[in-house]
């Protein structure tokens, strides 16, 4: 190989994504329904937190499920999987 070509240490870096995707409010994608937690039924088992594909479910200060509507896409997995029936999909 010609010695005029750059070695690997001189090569430029590949594309570097540097901004966190939190700028993207995927909550805007919801198609008419959103999950609402019935706090009196929620025991804080966190099954919904584990199974939400969008990191949009957490436990609030009271240890109850809390939805982050900025990112919740309204898939309804949490409502279907909650063992206590504590999450309801309601029209918005």
């Amino acid at each position, binding site marked *: 190989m010609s010695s005029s070509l750059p070695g690997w240490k001189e090569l430029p870096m590949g594309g570097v994504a540097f901004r*966190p*995707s*939190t700028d993207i409010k995927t909550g805007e994608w919801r*198609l008419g329904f959103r999950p609402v937690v019935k706090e009196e039924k929620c025991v804080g088992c966190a099954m919904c937190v*584990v*199974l939400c*594909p*969008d990191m949009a479910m957490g436990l609030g200060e009271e240890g109850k499920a809390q939805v982050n509507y900025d990112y919740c896409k309204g898939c309804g997995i949490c409502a279907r999987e909650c063992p206590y029936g504590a999450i309801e999909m309601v029209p918005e």
Partner: protein
Amino acid sequence: MLHEGVRTCSGCGASLIAKLVLKAARKPVVVVSATGCLEVATSILPYTSWKVPWIHNAFENAAATASGVEAAYKALAKKGLIKEVPDIVVLAGDGGTYDIGFQSLSGALERGHDFLYVLYDNEAYMNTGIQRSGGTPRYAWTTTCPAGEVLKGKLEAKKPIALIVAEHRIPYVATASPSEPHDLIRKVRRGLEVEGPAFLHVICPCPRGWRFDPSLSVEVARLAVKTCFFPLWECRWEDDDMVLELTGPSKLIAEVPELKLPVEAYLAIQGRFAHLFRPKRMEPLIRQIQADVDANWKLLLRRAGMA
């Protein structure tokens, strides 16, 4: 370990699996992603959803990249520049694993690099619009094996990728499902702990390509397990012998066979199999799928010494 704002479809199994895998990690991890839905949806420039060091390579070479990453960290450790080699995890789809990435995977397994390869199997090339792969099951509809008057979806059976990988005699191979998150997390940890390559095959429901309501993603995975369409097991090698054990609900089904549901329960809730039920029921095809499932299950029972 993943930022919010991931641009997978609503109810996507891939982002759920990635989240669970990262949750399981206890040491610093470096992730390598093959091209595919998960990679695209987490890294649209300039944005990234990864809170851990992450590399995207081409479609076909995730395992080769992971090999290089491992070698590089080992070299740094040898020179005393780092104290500890991080855990290295590959996340790749079925196209990137069964098909185009298989040669680089097989090579990396043979060389014995220390990494965990997680296959999220949504059973088609989803990111480019639902084309068939070696992981697409028999009679499933995709855009390249359509269902019409003559053809009824894919004619060939699903390649037994996890057993093929197990025959490389690597330290740890397992299957997992997002419907059993504790089992999945335990297997990720086991895969990371062993010295040398580990492989985790995870069933990955895709509401878009499998044609079901997004709220059903976890339920579809659960039915895949309950029907033995996708049994859960783990395997290691001891004294040149494959030691395979069924886990979770699959172990229970092996002990109490009446618990095994007919595969129809799994097929009927997915639009990609709708042509088997409408406009008229295709009994011989449904029976063929059941026969495939039963044969694979019997083979596993034998390997697990439970037949």
